[in-house]
């Protein structure tokens, strides 16, 4: 018990600590997740605040380009004529006739590469531009033009120009179906749904979803009574294309006569404006990097002092608003910095935990020492009692011896004899008490030894009862004997009388009110069975197991005013078990019934 104490103490200390550590770790993990989420939201909000001015700038561009388109004549041939007459140094405008054929630009006097590129790109979207047109049935079409009504098949004879890159899937066109009235109705909604479609899909007659954003500010010109479903067609919008992997934005406007004019938003202009708009690397982002990437993931512009590796994923990103929706802003944090913070947090936590453990350990040590001292003191006390008992034993034996001698000498005076008998009985009781103490001490020291020999159990019981007779009579306890053990058994007589003496002694103390002591003995299956019964208040079922534990005294109402050491039953059971037998408390109502079983062959050695 004493050896296990530090271990026990350690476990009781460490278990809660470990649990605490585990809990704290999990809490820290969760906190980290929450922090990451909070950070994500924060970064997202920052990107939003960057995207807003970009969007506003795009709207400015939109207004600017729209007004440029609006300043052209609202007639495709006049518009084309005016464009041809004007000496525009940069090819930016284009005009389609109602059949969807490119009427401007057609060719250039000087084949500058920029012009060719522009022409090629217009040619590229030509098929799509045709799709913007009202349904063919609504349109006056000449025989020659009717060939070009296959919208899915864009090549036009007039446009055999340079086509540096074949039509690729990169051409990202978010489209909305336009052919069916239901879809036309859907155009009015503020639906966010966008769908990508193959550029060549013939049944997907549609318009860019970008046109949706331009609906709030339709062209100011009044459309002179067009066909009923032409009314519902968007009048202007954005067209986003990819030419040679770079974004080309076209602002177009449909004319009332079925023609279509458009103007390009120059990509370099756009980049210039955005770079001017976005902040320089002014040191305000010491541990982060914000990037503007295009659809191919190429970095268009970036700032922030932190240089991430190429494969570091963005901590937050946000697509720009249409028509720049294929571009995105990315926020990258320095993971080392974040990791450092995290490691610091962990370290802090571990330090705290360590300190806590140290404190608890110190506390445990103190408790351990205190307990040990208390135990040492107790053991010293027991030793003292032991010594005293030992010292008492010899004089007590002498007293008893001489009292018995005196009893033999005074056979004729009954009153004196009676007193003497009491003296003898009390010395017996005292001897038993001292015997118990010594037995307990020996038991503790594992020095308890039995000296078995042949014993007449019934005789022993009778002798014992004779010793108790004065006290039993005084307490008016009736004795009922049913002794049928018969043959002698192998046992330590001192131990047996100590067991029974303790049982009777207990009965006197706690069950005297019942006024009964019933003792029976018999042999059963090579075992001596002695049962002792009283008619006292009994022991509650729940506490029956406890009665055999040392120093336990039950029920204050019972034990009150009764002296006792609380070791009797414990020693009795210990001795019984040492014999290879057992001592049990049987169920009985009322009172108690103890059953002692001992093997008749004596204790095994």
């Amino acid at each position, binding site marked *: 018990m004493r050896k296990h104490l530090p271990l026990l103490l350690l476990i009781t200390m460490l278990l809660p600590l470990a649990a605490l550590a585990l809990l704290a770790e999990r809490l820290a993990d969760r906190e980290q997740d929450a922090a990451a989420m909070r950070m994500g939201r924060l970064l997202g909000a920052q990107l939003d605040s960057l995207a807003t001015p970009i969007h506003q700038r795009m709207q400015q561009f939109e207004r600017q380009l729209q007004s440029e388109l609006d300043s052209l004549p609202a007639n495709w041939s006049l518009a084309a004529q005016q464009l041809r007459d004007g*000496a525009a140094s940069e090819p930016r405008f284009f005009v389609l006739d109602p059949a969807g054929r490119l009427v401007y630009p057609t060719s250039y006097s*000087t084949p500058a590469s920029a012009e060719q590129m522009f022409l090629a790109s217009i040619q590229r979207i030509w098929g799509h531009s045709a799709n913007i047109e009202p349904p063919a049935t609504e349109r006056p079409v000449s025989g020659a033009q009717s060939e070009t009504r296959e919208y899915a098949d864009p090549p036009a004879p007039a446009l055999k120009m340079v086509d540096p890159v074949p039509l690729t899937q990169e051409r990202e066109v978010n489209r909305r179906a336009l052919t069916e009235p239901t879809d036309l109705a859907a155009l009015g909604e503020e639906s966010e749904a966008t769908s990508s479609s193959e550029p060549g899909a013939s049944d997907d007659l549609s318009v860019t979803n970008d046109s949706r954003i331009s609906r709030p500010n339709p062209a100011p010109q009044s459309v002179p009574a067009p066909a009923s479903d032409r009314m519902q067609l968007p009048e202007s919008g954005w067209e986003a294309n990819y030419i040679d992997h770079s974004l080309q934005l076209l602002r177009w406007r449909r004319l009332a006569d079925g023609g279509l004019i458009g103007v390009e938003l120059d990509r*370099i202009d756009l980049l*210039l404006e955005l*770079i001017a708009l976005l902040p*320089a*690397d002014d*040191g305000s982002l010491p541990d982060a990097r914000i990037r503007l990437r295009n659809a191919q993931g*190429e970095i*268009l512009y970036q700032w922030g002092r932190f240089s991430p590796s190429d494969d570091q994923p963005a901590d937050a990103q946000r697509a720009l608003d249409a028509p720049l929706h294929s571009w995105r802003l990315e926020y990258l944090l320095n993971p080392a910095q974040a990791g450092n913070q995290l490691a610091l947090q962990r370290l802090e936590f571990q330090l705290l935990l360590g300190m806590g453990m140290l404190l608890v350990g110190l506390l445990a040590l103190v408790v351990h020492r205190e307990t040990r001292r208390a135990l040492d003191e107790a053991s010293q006390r027991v030793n003292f009692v032991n010594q005293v008992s030992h010292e008492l034993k010899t004089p007590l034996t002498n007293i008893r011896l001489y009292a018995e001698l005196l009893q033999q000498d005074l056979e004729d005076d009954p009153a004196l004899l009676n007193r003497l008998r009491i003296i003898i009985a009390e010395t017996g009781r005292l001897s038993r008490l001292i015997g118990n103490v010594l037995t307990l001490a020996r038991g503790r020291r594992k020095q308890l030894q039995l000296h078995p020999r042949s014993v007449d159990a019934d005789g022993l019981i009778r002798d014992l009862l004779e010793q108790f007779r004065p006290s039993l009579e005084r307490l008016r306890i009736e004795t009922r004997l049913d002794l049928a053990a018969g043959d002698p058994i192998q046992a330590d007589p001192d131990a047996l009388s100590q067991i029974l003496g303790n049982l009777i002694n207990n009965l006197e103390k706690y069950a005297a009110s019942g006024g009964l002591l019933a003792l029976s003995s018999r042999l059963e299956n090579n075992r001596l069975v002695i049962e002792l019964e009283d008619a006292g208040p009994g022991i509650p079922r729940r506490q029956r197991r406890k009665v055999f534990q040392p120093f336990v005294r039950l029920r204050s109402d019972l034990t009150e005013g009764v002296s006792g050491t609380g070791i009797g039953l414990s020693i009795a059971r210990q001795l019984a078990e040492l014999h290879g037998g057992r001592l049990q408390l049987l169920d009985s109502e009322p009172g108690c019934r103890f059953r002692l079983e001992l093997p008749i062959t004596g204790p095994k050695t």
Partner: protein
Amino acid sequence: MNRIPKHPLTLLLACLLSLATGLAQAALRMQLEPAQKLLFSDQPQTTYLRISLEGVFEADEAERAPVNVALVLDRSGSMQGDKLRHAREAALLALDYLRPRDILSLVTYDDTVEVPITATRFHDRAAVERAIRRIRAGGNTALFAGTAKGASEVAKFKDDNHVNRVILLSDGLANVGPSSPGELQRLGRKLGGQGMSVTTIGLGLGYNEDLMVRLAQASDGNHVFAEQPEELASIFRNEFGELGRIVAQDLVITIRCPEGVRPLRMVGREADIDRNRIVTRINQLAAEQEKYLLLEVEVRGDTGASERELADVELTYLDMVKGERQRRSDQARVEFTPSETKAQKSVQPEVMVSVTQQLATEMDDQALALKDQGRDGEAAKVFKQKADFLEEKAEAYDSDELRAQGAFSRELEDSVSAPAAVWNKARKEAREEQFIIRNQQSYK
């Protein structure tokens, strides 16, 4: 040529007038020089018209137009060491040319763009010096973004009264953001259209000369190849010096050809040709700098007429001294002769030297393209043809300029088969020479 006033008094008056108003303040001189004074009247022929513009500035230095300049410096990792040290020193020396009413911004770039000095009047020289000394190298080359940021700084104060320029120094390949020569050319054209020119200084042998040249060309700035960092000091001095001598900006030259004269092309320069009307722009013209346009035209022979108008030239420009827009116009005329030899003899050597220079340098494009494709032999052959052509014309017109150009072409011919490092340098020099010839750059 201008019609000469007949009356002597008118002549005197005109002279006095030009002395009083013209000489003191005339920002530029315009001269129209046909390559031949006499054209053969019997058949259509191709000839050239040289329109030369020369900056004139005789006012005080203090009266010069304020400049609005963004110095855009590469601070990528490759600039580390000598290059950055010399760049810093050159920039510090260049500050001598700035006056308090000038506007300076300093932009540096690697992966990202920093603006150590936003566009402000040049009052606090010490702060600028501190900022220049603080520049440290490391990282990639976001050339487009750097130039764009520089341009946005210039744009803050850009107006007609300032000389607006971005000076870009780079030693490496653009590798962050748009980085193709085509894209940078478009950027240059945009900025040129907005009235600012970009001077590109290529340092060392690591930069992309095509990109740097096209950026400068499109914006009508200057281009210099500085092989050694030590050259930066004089380049910056020249560049800032030229900035201080800019007398005219946004020169728009509109040429109209009459019936019977068909414009073919503008040699060495971009121009919008719309039937008989040619428009071209020159961003800036410095004092003591002569820039010219070479118009190639086809003239229908005319036996009936003795004289004909070749072109009507109109020039508008911002006079940086007066601070207002000016307009000039002039007519170029030729005479017809039935004698072919007379026509041949009337060739103007000075004009033809320019024409030869331009035609020869056009061959550089062809030769460089061949060399880039690995067709070394053919490239060498083109350089040889060019040298032969130049030498022949040098004799014909007795021109040292052409002799020098021819000699350089021989060097190039040899460099084609030389090791890559030698060719790399030669290619940069070739591009630089081509640029200087095309743009009549005021310094080298």
